[in-house]
């Protein structure tokens, strides 16, 4: 019985740990995707003449900046929580 409880607890925590690792990895890959996208948009912006297109590309750059900042903040916060838990 006790073994079962220990097993389920260890499964629960290992699942939680694995999910956390997966989440950090996904956030990291999202961050690199956004960085790549920023570079691509900057290059595109140089060659664009259409006013509406330029406005959309500029908005994309602003938004990408804010999103990257948000991801870094989430990652930093999660790191702090993890360290304090230890």
């Amino acid at each position, binding site marked *: 019985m006790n073994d079962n409880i220990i097993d389920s607890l260890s499964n629960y925590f290992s699942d939680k740990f694995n999910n956390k690792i997966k989440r950090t990895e996904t956030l990291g890959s*999202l961050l690199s995707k956004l960085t790549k996208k920023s570079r691509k948009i900057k290059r595109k912006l140089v060659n664009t003449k259409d006013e*509406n297109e330029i*406005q*959309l590309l500029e908005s994309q750059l602003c938004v990408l900046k804010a999103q990257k900042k*948000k991801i870094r903040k*989430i990652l930093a916060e999660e790191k702090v929580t993890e360290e304090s838990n230890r």
Partner: protein
Amino acid sequence: MLKNVFLPSIFIVLAYGFWLSPNFKEISAGVAIFLFGMISLEEGFKVFTGGTLEKILRVSTNTRLKSISFGMFTTTIMQSSSLVSVITISFLSAGLLGLSEGIGIVFGANLGTTTGAWLVAGLGLKVKISAYAMPMLVFGIIMVFQKNKALKGIGYILSGLGFLFLGIHYMKEGFEAFKGSIDLSAYAIPGYLGLFVFAGIGIAATIIMQSSHATLVLIITALAASQITYENALALAIGANVGTTITAILGAMSSAIAGKRLAGAHLIFNLATGLIAIVFINQFMQAVDWTSAKMGIANDNYTLKLAVFHTIFNLVGVLVMLPFIDSLVVFLEKKIKDKPTKMVGAKYLYSTSVDFPETAVEVIRKETINIFELSSNILTAGISLNMVDVAGKQSLQEIVQQSTKVIELDLDDEYETKIKGIYSEIIAFISKAAFTWEVEQSASIHWLRLANQNIVEAVKDMKHLRKNMSKNIGAKNKHIREQYNLLRIQIAIVLRELDRLKHQVKKEGTVILSLDALKLTVKANHDKLNVTIIKLLQKKKITPAMATSLMNDSQYALRIATNLIAMGGTLFASYDEDDISLEREVALSPQELEKIAVSNSNT
């Protein structure tokens, strides 16, 4: 007419048979119990389909060999080629599977179904299986009453197996008793005439029972009781194989064109295999004798020899037909074509997909994309533009300035005939498909339902916006004309971007996040327009009545854009629910977007 007479005639014939012979009653009851067991077994497997079976299907069918093995394996496990065929048809209808892979699965299912004959002939007749049936039924039924879905599923499978065994037992008993009173083998017909007549009987029996498995069990038990000759049993087995295609044909009746083609392939395959078996019956019998001798099966053990025959002729059928799969696909695509329809209805929502959650989500997604495409045309026409131009590369400003002619459009009629019908079908489909859904699929359905609502609201708002817009596109007042053109551009920007995302879903992978930029652009344009309206009013370039109309219409335009963007996030986002929820977490809130908009307007 025939339909109305068919069922009562069957009842009368059966009732007369029951009155005439208690043994016939016992055999029929055995068949009925066996069929009930199959229904129960299917019900049990459906509980476990909740996405898992479909996930396996997706990765196991990408090559022809894999699809054949998959068809064989699943049919062996489920002991029902019909269930596998119906799942395959639903996958084809949903466009998740190609026709040639589908054909591969059906070929494999034909091989898999031969294991049933081995089970009954090898085990069912030797062991007193009714002894196993009783505890299975008792445990199974207790589990069926449990709330836990998995237990319920196991309960259905267990009771299904119990009923199968019990059915076989009754059939066996019935034929044993028959043996004493009537000798059916006296009616045996020798030669090719006998082969065709008995194959016909096999087809008819399978069509009536809707299960080749049940027919085969009936043949094996009758053969074991020496009620039919070995040769006639072979012909009956060939007939059962042809007759089984009727289940696939019935399943395909309510499915998409691809499903109908698969049912066609199934029929062609089984007919060809049947014909080969009849023409080369002597060679097949020799092969059976040779194989049986090698396997140590006694020469007079006809039941096991029937199982060997069933396996060999299906195997030969697959080997013969395998090189022709591609030609079969071409032939079927040529012969079975989509009927052109005037009425716009749902394209993907077929009742066969309702039972399988992942497929159901996929067909709803495809249908929502369909409704979005129709709406895009209506919305672009609503702002007097053409979707081909909007989706093109020309500057939207130029397109809008060149399109000064109002496109005639009855938006109410367009909504009623094109959108409402499909929308209602989607909602009805969702309500029908509410059972073994896992959290993941329920969440997807929730978002897809919202996406549909977004589209419908956008079309309805267009109806209001269009009234003033149509009047002002060609207005003499240059200022009001320009402002309405800006509203047209705003909606066109969103439609162009969504069209781009629709074609780049897989490449991009950050659809929800990229929509934030669109939200920001729309918000900035809306704010700018409101400032301009006040300025124009102050300078008396437009009248107060014009200004209020413009303000109201800019609200409609904003709502249309916002609804479309929200829809885009659901429709074109990644398929991975974890990725989507993470993207939603990172996506900017209205407050965060407002902050950026304010800082942009200050600079």
